């Protein structure tokens, strides 16, 4: 079931075209990522979906309704970038206030436990660290038990541990049936969390696929390094169709190739009773895919 449908979205601010041509759909229960460099039009796109801005052209449907339909406010939780609370409001007061906006709010005590804010309930907003403010903002987006959560730059400003905890939380929220639209410029996050991704650059969708689909679409070479248990002839490896070249770095051998390189090399080694010690594989990452995609469209 499609819960968000964006078709031919266009939005300009005066002369500057922020979003030129964006179309995608988000299915129920998935974590859909919008990935792109700064200024690509990610935030404008989600602000249109959240009903905060009206598109110049194109159509958007959220749960089958227009984005500015006020009934959607009950079903869509939004965490905005650079949106703060009054300095002197305490965490408890903010949660209690926002919970009162919804007929059937989530249990905010449980939320604060999951987000590591349980011991900060009496702390005022101004005294929270950047990461704690961010987590409170996430809690406020989830407090109405939404069907869809829109999270903009979710883990910006969090330390690595808090970031991982937040990812776990997002996965558990998705497991409870919430569809998540995630805006990020952070590859590791997109690769770890997203079922599908739209890569946006210069206001256009340049790719739309799963993270692994984006990576494999690159058809880049892979790199294998290992130390053989006994001396070995390069020809043994270069004879394989998957292998493009073999280099030696002292005791280490580096094999560059494509396709199912790992399987081809290890089975040849096994046949020759050679053990590959300290085996490491370097594969193309989403990072590589992203750089490739965005630099291509940048040259147009």
């Amino acid at each position, binding site marked *: 079931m499609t819960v968000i449908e964006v078709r031919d979205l266009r939005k300009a601010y005066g002369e500057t075209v922020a979003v030129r041509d964006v179309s995608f759909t988000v299915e129920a229960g998935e974590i859909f990522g919008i990935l792109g460099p700064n200024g690509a039009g990610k935030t404008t796109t989600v602000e249109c979906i*959240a*009903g*905060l801005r009206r598109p110049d052209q194109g159509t958007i449907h959220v749960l089958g309704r227009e984005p500015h339909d*006020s009934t959607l*406010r*009950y079903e*869509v*939780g*939004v965490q*905005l970038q*650079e*949106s*703060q*609370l*009054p300095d*002197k*409001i305490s965490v408890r*007061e903010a949660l*209690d*206030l*926002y919970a*009162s*906006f*919804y007929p059937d709010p989530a249990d905010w005590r449980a939320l604060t436990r999951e987000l590591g804010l349980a011991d900060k309930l009496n702390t005022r907003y101004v005294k929270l660290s950047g990461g704690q403010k961010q987590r409170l903002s996430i809690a*406020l987006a989830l407090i*109405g038990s939404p069907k869809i959560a829109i999270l903009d730059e979710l883990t910006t400003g969090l330390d690595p541990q808090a970031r991982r905890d937040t990812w776990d939380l997002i996965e558990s929220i998705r497991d409870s049936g919430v569809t998540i639209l995630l805006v990020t410029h952070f590859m590791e996050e997109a690769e770890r969390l997203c079922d599908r991704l739209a890569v946006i650059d210069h206001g256009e969708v340049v790719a739309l696929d799963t993270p692994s689909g984006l990576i494999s679409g690159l058809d880049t070479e892979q790199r294998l390094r290992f130390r053989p248990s006994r001396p070995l002839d390069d020809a043994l490896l270069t004879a394989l169709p998957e292998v493009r070249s073999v280099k030696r770095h002292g005791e280490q051998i580096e094999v560059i190739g494509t396709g199912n390189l790992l399987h081809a090399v290890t089975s040849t080694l096994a046949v020759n009773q050679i053990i590959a010690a300290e085996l490491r594989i370097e594969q193309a990452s989403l990072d590589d895919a992203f750089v490739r995609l965005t630099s291509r469209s940048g040259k147009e």
Partner: protein
Amino acid sequence: MRVFAKLTLTELRLFLREPVSAFFVLFFPTLLVIILGSIPSFREPSADLGGARVIDLYVGIAVALTLAMVAIQIAPAVLATYRERGVLRRLATTPVSPLKMLGAQLAMHGITAVVSTALVLAVGRLAFGVRLAEQFGGFVLAFVLTAAGVLAIGLFVGAVVPSGKAGSSVGTILFFPLMFFAGLWTPREVMPEVLRKIADFTPLGAGERALNDAMTGSWPNLLSATVLVGYLVVFGLAAVRLFRWS
């Protein structure tokens, strides 16, 4: 209604957590009455003031001062800060309209102004024998008209300034001339004729005059009421037109 009450309560709490502004709004006008009332000659009827006492006049001026602080110094800063920091934008993504939040702020400003005014009137009455407004309905009307006129100006400032800091500065710059014409330094009764004419057309000059009318037993004069309604309409409409949520 429950949400509105909760928003108002939250706004009140936040207001009370700013000790300096809370003190000035809630207690400074009363303190002014106490200080002036402690000067013996200010408690004597004066021929220059048409037989009234200085302290009688200053109770009305202190009420105007309360409204000036709330509407001109506090309201624009709070409004602009909320906009600047995305508080209103965030609210726009929830089922609660940011308009409700603005309503809650007005309610909070209204409550603090009424409390401060009640304190001024009570101390004036109990400590210095200043009679409570003889025309009570007129006093309420004058109070509401003055509050509406100056709040419209305050919201206008809050709508057009870029930041909370700017709202605060503009408010302070406006505060002194407005309070001058309200007679904080020279009561209207002893102002030179020209100044008095000008004062009649300023929001707090008109407000103070209307309040004083009611204190001495008549309904607010037509000119003052018209001037105040004018400020409400002009600045209120401009504020609504120019206001941006983010």
